[in-house]
């Protein structure tokens, strides 16, 4: 994992000092409300319904145990004993006091963390594959490039006041787990015909109000040109992106309105001026790569197969292994998901006690590192299979072992009307209700791979438009209603879900979801997954049943 050098540390320390000064000036009336808003957003600070909300960066979803202990400490000292993991692999605190935020940021800086550019119309935290470095289908570890991009985007002087927010994601595997087709810029590490590894560059993807699948602007970009090419795209966007209407200001609209051909010609022309003067050297790439070397795996860890016997003795353990662990490229190791989707917990929430406990487990079983996923769970990525049973027992006692990863109750959910000032409808309550309706774990496992994404408003923070089942909260004359979409996907087979029909009332949404699941169970062919069936039969059979009584 990347460790800060003196420059990194000085930068975050100076950022804390700057924001402390800005907060003091604001409280004295020397900075206007409007101006302070722009400044605080660039330090992750929103003002929400109940209190400010602070979003802390989780750079490409990577944390260490010390950082988790610090998050626990902050939750305990400055907040209400919990925090929330987001779809951008970040961490949110829901109850900080404005005056204390500089202190929180100073605490974060002591463990190489910050909240820089986690909101505002600027380049945001770069996200990546949560299985980076350990997945079996990896072409190359994307994390060094994420770190290079993190540094380049941080306090970039020219691109801090863009038309709108700007998000990038990098994937290094064949299977796209980073939703790169739905980012302003998506980067795929790919091999060219000569066997060299470079980037396929996608542009103009995005979710929110107008979901758009990104288009390939550069099928193969040499690594040395990564930053000059990003710079060219950002400069063209900064100059030509719309600023007259915030709903049309994302790069996806610029690409759409100008057409990919014209947009890429502008970028190409700009890039030709830049590319020879700003090359990424092999030395630089290798220096960053050296910070992501594999941990000291035990040789022959696969010889101890006791966990197979333990699975035979303990059915619950076997189920957990099946759903909450995944293959690892090193023999004898597995990556372990910690489910933040226990039935009685708001999706993505974790308490100070759990954070401390996870830090200890990471130290003991996974080389002191923890990852967050864009589906709002945690991962211990490097667990020896011989430790799985003990780890499972401890996770059970921490309420972090619900065996539902990738299933219907592993919902992505935004904070909704309970916390967010943008929301039109509640989402946490609906997630709870759906969980209560689906209380049979065998039924959940029988349904298999099914992703429900639920957002409380059009901004779509929970990526509802790419959920296999998407639920979108809308306001109808002051009451909460929910639109349903089917067939979305954020993976390789990227698709935007189709509307099922008219929105359903709050007291009908859970029933609508269980009806959809029943239609699937009755009509699937053999082991056909939900998404495959929706693609085969369309929305009609679901629609007929959901609206049958209305």
């Amino acid at each position: 994992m990347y460790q800060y050098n003196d420059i990194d540390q000085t930068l975050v320390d100076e950022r804390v000092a700057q924001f402390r000064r800005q907060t003091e000036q604001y409280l004295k009336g020397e900075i206007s409300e409007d101006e302070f808003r722009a400044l605080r957003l660039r330090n992750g600070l929103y003002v929400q319904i109940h209190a400010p909300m602070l979003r802390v960066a989780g750079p490409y979803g990577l944390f260490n145990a010390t950082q988790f202990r610090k998050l626990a400490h902050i939750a305990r000292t400055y907040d209400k004993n919990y925090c929330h993991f987001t779809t951008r692999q970040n961490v949110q605190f829901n109850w900080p006091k404005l005056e204390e935020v500089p202190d929180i940021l100073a605490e974060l800086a002591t463990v190489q963390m910050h909240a820089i550019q986690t909101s505002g119309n600027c380049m945001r935290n770069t996200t990546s594959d949560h299985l980076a470095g350990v997945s079996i289908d990896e072409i190359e570890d994307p994390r060094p490039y994420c770190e290079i991009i993190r540094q380049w985007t941080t306090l970039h002087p020219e691109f801090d006041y863009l038309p709108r927010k700007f998000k990038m994601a990098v994937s290094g595997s064949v299977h796209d787990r980073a939703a790169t087709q739905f980012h302003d810029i998506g980067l795929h590490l790919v091999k060219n015909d000569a066997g060299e590894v470079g980037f396929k560059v996608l542009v103009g993807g995005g979710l929110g109000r107008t979901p758009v699948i990104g288009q390939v602007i550069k099928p193969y970009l040499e690594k040395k040109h990564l930053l000059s090419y990003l710079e060219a795209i950002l400069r063209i966007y900064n100059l030509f992106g719309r600023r007259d209407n915030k709903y049309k200001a994302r790069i996806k609209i610029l690409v759409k309105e100008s057409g990919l051909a014209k947009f890429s010609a502008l970028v190409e022309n700009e890039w030709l001026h830049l590319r020879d003067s700003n090359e990424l050297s092999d030395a630089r790439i290798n220096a960053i790569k050296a910070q992501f070397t594999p941990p000291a795996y035990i040789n022959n860890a696969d010889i101890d197969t006791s966990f197979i016997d333990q699975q035979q003795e303990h059915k619950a353990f076997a189920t957990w292994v099946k759903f909450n662990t995944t293959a690892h490229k090193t023999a004898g190791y597995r990556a372990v998901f910690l489910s933040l989707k226990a039935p009685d917990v708001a999706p993505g929430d974790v308490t100070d006690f759990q954070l401390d406990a996870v830090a200890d487990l990471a130290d003991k079983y996974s080389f002191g590192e923890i990852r967050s996923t864009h589906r709002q769970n945690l991962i211990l990525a490097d667990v020896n299979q011989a430790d799985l049973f003990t780890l499972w027992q401890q996770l059970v006692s921490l309420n972090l072992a619900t065996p539902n990863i990738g299933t219907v109750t592993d919902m992505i959910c935004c904070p909704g009307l309970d916390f967010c000032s943008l929301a039109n409808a509640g989402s946490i309550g609906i997630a709870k209700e759906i969980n209560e309706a689906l209380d049979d774990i065998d039924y959940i496992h029988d349904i298999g791979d099914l992703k429900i994404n639920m957002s409380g408003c059009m901004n779509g923070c929970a990526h509802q438009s790419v959920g296999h089942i998407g639920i979108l909260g809308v306001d109808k004359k002051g009451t909460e209603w929910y639109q349903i979409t089917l067939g979305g996907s954020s993976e390789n087979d990227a698709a935007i879900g189709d509307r099922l029909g008219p929105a359903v009332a709050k007291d009908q949404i859970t029933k609508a979801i269980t009806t959809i699941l029943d239609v699937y169970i009755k009509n699937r062919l053999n082991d056909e997954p939900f998404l495959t069936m929706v693609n085969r039969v369309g929305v009609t059979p679901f629609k007929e049943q959901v609206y049958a009584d209305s």
Partner: protein
Amino acid sequence: MQIVKDNQLIDNSWKYVADDAELVDGDITISLLRWEKDHQQLLAHEGKLGLRIAPNDSVDEMAANLKGIDLVELDFPDFADGRLFSHAWYLRSRFGYQGEIRATGHFMPDQVFYLSRVGVNAFAPEKVEYLPFVLTNLNDFTVEYQNSIN
């Protein structure tokens, strides 16, 4: 009013002449439109000449009109309009412009560090009481991740 130039407080000698106003003596800035329209008359002007650039002004047009220009004012209608940061970058790093680049209008004293990094070397903030903030905030950071123009 005073301004900050090259990290110093100095007296401002420049006047902006609006498109519909009569030219005045001394050092003046005018819009690109005026510069193109009254070009011959302006070439005969006794004081120095500067251009006042708005975010909407085309970079290419700006580049084509830099000869004989001693000052480029980047005039912010709104601090959130980041296009002028790119204009500054182009002036310094692509067009080799060596004269003064001055931020004017509605920019924040909290933006001067970034502005200086893309090549702006003078600041005429909206309010005189911002001048000390400009001077202080120019030193917000001692480190940086990207190449700088300044």
